[in-house]
């Protein structure tokens, strides 16, 4: 056999395939970027797609404001690059790697804690900044890495849990709390947090912990267990849809126990889903566009209404925490980049840990929001308790 000709033949046949693959692999790193890329890895499809959209709105709003003022680092514009994590940790990891190879200055995370947790080892290793604006799992910022590149402007489960128990006790005089937790990472994270919080709070004890699946219809059995354990308040950790199922089951039993909830039930048409008793759940928020707004609040709402015509008033802002957190976090990151004078991860990290300029934001005025030991920009004092009044989220008294 004529090996030489054979080899040529094989080569020729593989040439096209090789060329195609090389072209595609090359494309990722081909462009040296003038704009500063801002990455977002969040759920853009599937049931949590709205959360990703809410975050994107907050980011875009802040980016537009910054770009309108001439960008950063001597006129470089900011540019949002989005990737869908499909709420799946492996996909999130893949997306983060892709964004890092495109040299984004920062990666904003989404709703799902496990996705953020899956991305973090790679992000810390590659020295990129991660900014959490929704996922509340405590160990996202407390991830054990040193140096740690994960920051967050959002609620932190451990802190929220302290607040929830305290509120149940103070507002409703509850001494025996029953936990109703979604059987997912978030629920499990809060199970830990609530257990720890109950240890430190002598006024209230946990008398039962029940879980339910995201697709459960009927939770009467779980509630009956809590009821027979003597629970006089329910601490709810769930998203809108399963949270609504919990409220409906409670209504079905005719049990008028107070419900204190994590922020999952905000947005996602909770009032429509939960029906008449939707307003009976008090829950935590970092921000509400209802009620009296400060100067920043008025401006942001006006801009949102202008940019997204479907938004007519505060009712139109779905998942407000996502938008609010993202908006503030983007501005903080911009300040960090400006102070660092570069898009280098290490430089931004050090700048953020020691932000010199105070930032008057939507949620509050941030004065030294981060330090080398604290990467969470918001604390328990920044949380507010709210409940639904028809379709409006209004602060509790």
């Amino acid at each position, binding site marked *: 056999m004529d090996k030489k000709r054979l080899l040529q033949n094989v080569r020729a046949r593989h040439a096209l395939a090789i060329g195609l693959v090389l072209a595609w692999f090359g494309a990722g790193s081909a462009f040296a970027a003038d704009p500063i890329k801002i990455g977002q890895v969040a759920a853009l499809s599937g*049931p949590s797609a709205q959360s990703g959209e809410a975050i994107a709105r907050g980011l875009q709003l802040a980016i537009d404001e910054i770009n309108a003022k001439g960008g950063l680092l001597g006129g470089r514009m900011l540019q949002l690059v989005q990737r869908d994590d499909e709420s799946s940790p492996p996909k999130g990891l893949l997306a983060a790697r892709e964004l890092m190879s495109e040299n984004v200055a920062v990666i904003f995370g989404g709703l799902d804690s496990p996705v953020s947790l899956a991305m973090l080892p790679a992000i810390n290793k590659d020295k990129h900044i991660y900014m959490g604006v929704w996922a509340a799992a405590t160990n996202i910022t407390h991830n054990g890495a040193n140096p740690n590149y994960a920051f967050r402007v959002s609620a932190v489960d451990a802190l929220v849990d302290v607040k929830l128990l305290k509120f149940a006790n103070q507002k409703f005089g509850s001494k025996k709390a029953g936990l109703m937790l979604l*059987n997912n990472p978030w629920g499990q994270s809060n199970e830990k947090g609530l257990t720890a919080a109950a240890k430190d709070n002598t006024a209230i004890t946990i008398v039962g912990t029940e*879980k339910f699946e995201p*697709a459960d219809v*009927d939770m009467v059995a779980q509630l009956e*267990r809590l009821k027979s354990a003597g629970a006089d308040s329910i601490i709810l950790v769930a998203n*809108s849809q399963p949270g609504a199922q919990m409220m409906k089951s409670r209504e079905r039993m005719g049990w008028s126990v107070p419900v204190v909830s994590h922020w999952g039930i905000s947005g996602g*048409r909770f009032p429509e*889903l939960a029906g008449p008793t939707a307003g009976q759940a008090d829950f935590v928020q970092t921000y509400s566009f209802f009620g009296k707004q400060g100067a920043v609040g008025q401006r942001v709402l006006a801009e949102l209404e202008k940019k997204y015509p479907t938004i007519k008033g505060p009712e139109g802002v779905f998942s407000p925490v996502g938008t609010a957190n993202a908006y503030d976090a983007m501005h903080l990151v911009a300040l960090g980049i400006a102070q660092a004078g570069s898009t280098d991860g290490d430089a931004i990290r050090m700048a953020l840990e020691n932000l010199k300029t105070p930032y008057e934001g939507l949620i509050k005025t941030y004065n030294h929001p981060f330090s080398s030991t604290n990467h969470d920009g918001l604390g328990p004092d920044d949380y507010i308790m709210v409940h639904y009044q028809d379709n409006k989220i209004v602060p509790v008294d």
Partner: protein
Amino acid sequence: MLIATAIVSGLGLGSMYGLLALGFHVTYAVSKTVNFAQGSTMMLGAVLCFTFWVTLGWPLPLAILLALACCALWGAVVERIAVRPFVARGSNSWLIATVALGIVLENVVLFTFGKDPRGMPPGILTTGAFSVAGIRIQYLQALIPLIGLALAAALQIGFARSRHGKALLAVVQNKDAARLMGIRVERVIAIAFALSSFLAGIAGILVAPLFTIASGMGTLFGIKAFAVAILGGIESAWGVVLAGLIYGVAEAMITALLGSTYTQIVTFALVILALALRPNGLFGRAELRKV
């Protein structure tokens, strides 16, 4: 008390499983095939009913009838494009094909109906309730098992009494002999798929006020209902209905007694165990192997 309420809850959900499983039974009996994505058909019923009634503002009875008609039509479509071509060439790929079609349907609904889950407006069925021995039972909760059993009975009677029902039973018992009676077997199979989807649609509409309406609402229901159908011995109508009720009550009891943590693990492990011990289901008969 704990057990009594668990039974009430379990019967409600169990009859949903039973209805869906009855759909599996109907098509399996006439054609040895099923629409594996029965859960997405259930979702279709709920979504269409909601759209017609709430979004478009049509009268509720019309909305329900139209939604069910669409479900039935969808069933026939599934049979035509995801089952018949494969059966015709002797392949069992209809199983995956129906799963694929279910994925397509769910995603089409996701983009047309929207990603946001929706809720049926409250009505007297969900707000009203009565008490029996201290247990509060919503009207709808009591109604669902009744409707479920009534439908199962109606099916049974319809098959036994009506001309076309008997034709369907004839196809179940002996396809060739049925053909010799002039019964259009292919049409009967298509009708069985329509009927199966019709039942799933009813389940969807019934569960909608208790649940939330979204493109993914039926997936787990469909899987559990299939487990129920298999457990009941898919060839037996009463078997699957009974298995549905047993499954629903078992789920609620496990939650009530062991705690909710292990509900899924225990129920699915029981499914495996039951099939390992009784490969033809709890109420199914073994077939004689012919050589």
